[in-house]
């Protein structure tokens, strides 16, 4: 391929992550990805909504769930959403040290969330509530597990961005990656709020 390379069109009036034309298009593309991810979660929520009372011989939602660990997970994820918001704020101020501190804190809170969730799942399984037990449990593990897998992937992704920022600084590319990661993380927070409301709190309404 011998195509002429287009000059990057830099716009100095917008934040760094939007300054390069090609990088800023990737932010719009990432919004499109999030939209498709909403559809994945919408189908999983649909199947959970349909199956949530089909408990067969297994426990019901009210018998299975304890709100204590769930509240801990919710507070961890909400706080991590706040810290990644502060990380982007620091990024806009070109403050690399503050950005990396908030990002690391976000990762630790995310790891705490995943740990609490895995502990919760292990407790359920050891009580005999596996995902073969009933349609309700299948729907529950698939929905909540898909969200947990997203968070786990997000932690690995953010680690790679952290290394890139440490080595290359705040360029149009690294800031764009940080911005898309923050969109991803807030999106997972929104999905969790709906899981918290529709799965856990709704399970306690009898």
């Amino acid at each position, binding site marked *: 391929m011998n195509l002429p390379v287009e000059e990057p069109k830099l716009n100095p009036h917008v934040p760094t992550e939007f300054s390069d034309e090609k990088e800023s*298009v990737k932010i719009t593309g990432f919004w499109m990805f999030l*939209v498709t991810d*909403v559809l994945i979660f*919408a189908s999983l929520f*649909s199947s959970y*909504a349909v199956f949530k009372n089909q408990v067969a011989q297994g426990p019901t939602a009210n018998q299975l769930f304890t709100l204590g660990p769930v509240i801990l997970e919710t*507070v961890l994820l909400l706080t991590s959403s*706040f810290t990644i918001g502060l990380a982007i704020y620091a990024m806009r101020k070109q403050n690399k040290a503050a950005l990396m501190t908030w990002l690391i804190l976000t990762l630790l809170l995310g790891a705490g969330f995943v740990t609490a969730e895995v502990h919760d799942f292990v407790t359920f399984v050891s009580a005999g509530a596996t995902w073969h037990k009933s349609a309700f449990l299948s729907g529950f593990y698939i929905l909540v597990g898909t969200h947990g897998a997203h968070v786990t992937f997000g932690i690995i992704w953010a680690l790679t961005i952290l290394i890139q920022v440490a080595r290359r600084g705040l360029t149009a590319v690294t800031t764009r990656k940080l911005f898309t990661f923050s969109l991803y993380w807030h999106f997972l927070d929104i999905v969790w*709020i709906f899981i918290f409301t529709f799965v856990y709190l709704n399970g306690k309404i009898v």
Partner: protein
Amino acid sequence: MSQRLEFRPEADDAVNDEGEALRFMRPHFGEEKFPWVQIWGYVGSLVLTFAALILVVDHVLPPLALLSVILTLAVGQAALQLGVFMHIRESRGLAWQMIFLGMVLLMGVGMVGMSIWIMTFKSGVS
């Protein structure tokens, strides 16, 4: 530093080319000296979460009304996350993501709502 965050629509051709009909998608960048918006967003999200929790633990309403109220609180919280943290109105050109999000809201609500509705026929689900 504040110079960097200042956005002038006339500096971007992509914005100027569009008519008045797409005015709502024009980008808007927030600029603050201190992250008050983020702090109030965090406080707001905690308030909404614990309001839903208290309502459920105290069983203050009949089941269906209670579910409607906590789902409304969740939608409010999603709007808060989008508005405060996700910089929904920021873009280099027009903020097309607002169109995508409007579309997926329609599709998601349709998907979940219609699934629940159709499965109420001739099945044990109610």
